[in-house]
């Protein structure tokens, strides 16, 4: 049991919001949604359901022979195959699911990190808030199968019928004689058995859970992290290794012309200066951009050497990229009709008949991830083999990219996933590992490449800048009868392919076309937005700009129509129902986060419910001190429903502080409430950072920021004072969805809605910066 006051509560779901039509399994089954005890009685936890895991490379694996090893002393070793970047999913929550069904004693469980190998472990790409969503079922199956193998081995040993033996807390018991054997005693015999087929597996009744849904387990790396023993990307050492930093082209698409290393080579400890091969996007996936590497006996010397390099670059085609000018281009794009991606009813007719048309335009700048651990990797290429230690979100993908780069068979490449000091999407691109491989191959020694913070901020794959314009047609009864949302933002696909100017299906489906509002006439369009830098995933991705615009605009409508923000939001969401977009969204432009629609439909009732829970818990409508305001926002992303109420305090000089945040999250069946709470608490801080400060700007193709002095992070003294997390519980039947990303998008709009409530000043352009300063 944790000893501290919990930062979260588990909310009761009220029957009022429950939806009658509920999708389940392979087809739409109409049934009343069940309360937990009813679901249990119905045996729902025994049933399988479809997830998007089958559409992911290498799918999932559930075989205990792959994931579980039991030693003669009873120690259970569970393999963590996905990357651990701080959510707790990879190394704690997924193994916890195995341990639960295996009925293992958690204090006798050890976690071992796998190498990158998707053929063996299934998909390892830790991204998209998918770990628990895709691996809950296979990990349960894995644990249950191992348990049944132990039971079967014990029954054979005792010569009794398997039905009379039971595994319980690391022992198998013969219920008739009372004799017992520890898991260690049965390990060898159990491991020799074939894995039982899924159809034969039985699962624990959820009422017997000891770990799932409880707060009995802390993260497995807690001691090592707090003792300074946890190992991240730069923390492995090989004999004879050298340390390298690289000067990269300051403009994406630029190339090295020449360099002079004379002064750099005079720095004590610097041994080599050499050009590194580079590729110019688009179409180069995660290949590095090249540059000049300084290789030294320690990292500090390599950095000092790099400062002394004289380099001439050819800046290439993006040398005029200027975010001020680009913003004007995007504004022009949303001022005219774009590509229609959703068309329901007739917005133009609605606008013509409307009593008033209300509109607003929002700007959300480029952002960069700045995980606390800047990219780094240690790679040794020798004797036709490659061994790497790297903090990567996609261990299997990185192994394959290394193999391709080095022209080796994937079996010749060993990729050890270290802990990630944060990822947030940056480390789903393995360019820094490929750089170390190129250098190691060239020099014949192990090379650790270290990115500085400046490298991280100036040579990244940036979160897309966006201009969003929304218009609402309102009739004489102040009812919203039409909604048109135009979004202009460069697509991530631009990094992979030339000639792309519009957002792709997976991008428009993050808060643009999937707006679940009960409005008759809805039209969504994308404007042209060619990219002039590398665009990449950032935690929550396009949900940030789309969600900011939509949720800010709802509050703007409320103000214009003399309504309460929360009431307006609930009215627009409308009654509990499945919002089926498949008819109104342009062909192939709707993407339900890669999930089968029947398993994860858009459920307006669940969105309403989180908004109501957050509002209730926050004391919506309460009297506030002067200068304070409350704002609300609700957003579905990664098939999870989140609503946030922010209380802001705006000082007379315009300084903002956040006394309190209440976030309600409905992620379906939940596994690890303590880690869910930590993700939501963290998202409030990241949300405040992006709202207050987040702004990457380009001039002459170059990023103008470089470190935490000009790309600021919220610190402890300005972070939300209290963040309360309210988890909406569900039985197993309501499929687990995802937690890493969904809490982020509602924060910035809730904050700006609160600022408006406090001051009457509407923030339409992020970041807030000094817009409130007086």
């Amino acid at each position, binding site marked *: 049991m944790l000893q501290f006051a919990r930062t979260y509560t588990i909310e009761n779901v009220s029957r009022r919001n429950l939806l009658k039509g509920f999708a389940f399994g392979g087809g739409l089954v109409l049934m009343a949604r069940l309360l937990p005890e009813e679901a249990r009685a119905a045996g729902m936890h025994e049933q399988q359901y479809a997830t998007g895991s089958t559409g992911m490379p290498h799918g999932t694996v559930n075989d205990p022979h792959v994931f579980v090893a039991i030693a003669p002393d009873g120690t259970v070793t569970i393999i963590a195959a996905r990357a651990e970047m701080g959510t707790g999913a990879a190394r704690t929550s997924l193994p916890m699911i195995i341990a639960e069904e295996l009925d293992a004693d958690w204090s006798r469980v050890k976690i071992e990190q796998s190498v990158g190998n998707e053929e063996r472990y299934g998909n390892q790409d830790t991204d998209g808030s998918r770990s628990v969503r895709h691996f809950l079922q296979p990990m349960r199956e894995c644990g249950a199968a191992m348990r049944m193998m132990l039971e079967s081995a014990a029954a054979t040993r005792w010569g009794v019928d398997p039905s009379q033996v039971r595994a319980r807390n690391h022992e198998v018991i013969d219920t008739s004689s009372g004799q017992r054997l520890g898991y260690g005693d049965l390990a060898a015999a159990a491991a020799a058995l074939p894995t039982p087929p899924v159809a034969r597996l039985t699962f624990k009744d959820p009422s017997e859970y000891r770990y799932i849904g409880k707060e009995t387990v802390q993260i497995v790396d807690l001691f090592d992290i707090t003792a300074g023993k946890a190992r991240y990307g730069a923390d492995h050492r090989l004999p004879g290794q050298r340390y390298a930093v690289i000067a990269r082209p300051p403009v994406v698409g630029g190339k090295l012309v020449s360099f002079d290393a004379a002064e750099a080579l005079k720095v004590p400890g610097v041994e080599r200066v050499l050009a590194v091969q580079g590729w110019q996007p688009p179409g180069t996936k995660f290949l590095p951009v090249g540059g000049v590497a300084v290789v030294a006996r320690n990292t500090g010397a390599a950095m000092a050497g790099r400062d002394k390099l004289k380099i001439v670059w050819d800046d290439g085609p993006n040398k005029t990229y200027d975010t001020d000018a680009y913003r004007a281009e995007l504004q022009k794009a949303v001022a005219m009709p774009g590509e229609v991606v959703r068309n329901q009813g007739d917005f133009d007719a609605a606008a013509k008949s409307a009593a008033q048309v209300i509109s607003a335009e929002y700007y959300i700048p480029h952002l960069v991830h700045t995980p606390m651990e800047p990219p780094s990797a240690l790679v040794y290429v020798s004797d036709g083999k490659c061994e790497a230690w790297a903090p990567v979100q996609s261990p299997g993908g990185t192994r394959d990219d290394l193999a391709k780069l080095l022209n080796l068979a994937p079996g010749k490449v060993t990729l050890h996933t270290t802990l990630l000091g944060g990822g947030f999407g940056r480390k789903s691109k393995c360019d820094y590992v490929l750089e170390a491989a190129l250098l190691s191959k060239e020099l014949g020694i192990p090379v650790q490449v270290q990115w500085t913070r400046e490298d991280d901020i100036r040579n990244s794959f940036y979160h897309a800048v966006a201009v969003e314009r929304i218009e609402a047609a309102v009739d004489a009864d102040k009812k919203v009868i039409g909604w048109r949302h135009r979004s202009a933002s460069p697509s991530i696909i631009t990094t992979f392919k030339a000639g792309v100017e519009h957002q792709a299906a997976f991008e428009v489906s993050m808060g643009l076309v999937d707006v679940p509002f009960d409005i008759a006439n809805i039209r969504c369009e994308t404007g042209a937005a060619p990219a002039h830098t590398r665009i990449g995933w950032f935690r929550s991705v396009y949900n940030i700009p789309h969600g900011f615009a939509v949720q800010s605009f709802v509050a703007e409508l409320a103000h214009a129509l003399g309504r309460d923000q929360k009431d307006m939001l609930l009215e627009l969401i409308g009654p509990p129902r499945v919002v089926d977009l498949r008819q109104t969204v342009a062909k192939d432009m709707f993407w339900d986060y890669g999930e089968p629609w029947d398993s994860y439909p858009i459920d307006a009732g669940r969105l309403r419910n989180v908004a109501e829970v957050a509002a209730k818990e926050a004391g919506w409508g309460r009297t506030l001190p002067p200068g304070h305001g409350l704002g609300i926002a609700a957003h579905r992303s990664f098939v999870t429903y989140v609503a946030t109420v922010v209380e802001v305090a705006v000082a007379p000089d315009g300084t903002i502080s956040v006394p309190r945040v209440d976030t309600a999250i409905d992620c379906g069946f939940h596994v690890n409430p*303590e880690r869910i709470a930590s993700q939501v608490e963290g998202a409030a801080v990241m949300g405040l950072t992006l709202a207050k400060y987040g702004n990457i700007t380009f001039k002459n193709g170059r990023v103008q920021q470089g*470190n935490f002095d000009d790309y600021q992070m919220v*610190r402890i*003294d300005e972070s939300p004072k209290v963040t309360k997390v309210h988890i909406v519980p569900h039985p197993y039947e309501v499929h687990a969805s995802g937690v890493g990303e969904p809490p982020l998008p509602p924060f910035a709009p809730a904050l700006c809605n609160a600022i408006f409530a406090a001051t009457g000043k509407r923030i339409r352009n992020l970041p807030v910066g000094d817009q409130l300063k007086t």
Partner: protein
Amino acid sequence: MIKFTVNGQPQTTDADPSSPLLWYLRDELDLIGTKFGCGKALCGACTVHIDGQAVRSCTLPLSTVDGRAVVTIEGLHPSGDHPVQRAWRAVSVPQCGFCQAGQIMQAAALLAANPKPTDAEIDQGMSGNICRCGCYQRIHMAVRLAATGV
């Protein structure tokens, strides 16, 4: 020649006196618990103690530690059970964990100098340490727990 101690062990080096202490700790002594986050004394990931004071090792020239005692996260407590480390575990502070060694070293120095800080003093004392994962609420709780037992 620069002479100093690290976690009680005497060290002598003729390394470049202008080079930052951080890289000597990490790359020469393999004390990898001290982290690199910014290199400009902006984030606190590299915090160590020098004669009991919290210092950013990423910008501290080796020459300035001559004759002094350096303590890293590895040397904060022989078994890793300093009251601050224990409080950090009781509150389950970390997410990714990368900033936490620096946070813990900062908190330990703060409490050594001011055993009963107010909430505002905790915020002020810890504001040089960034946590990108956003664990601040729990960091605050853990510092308070280490200071007061609650």
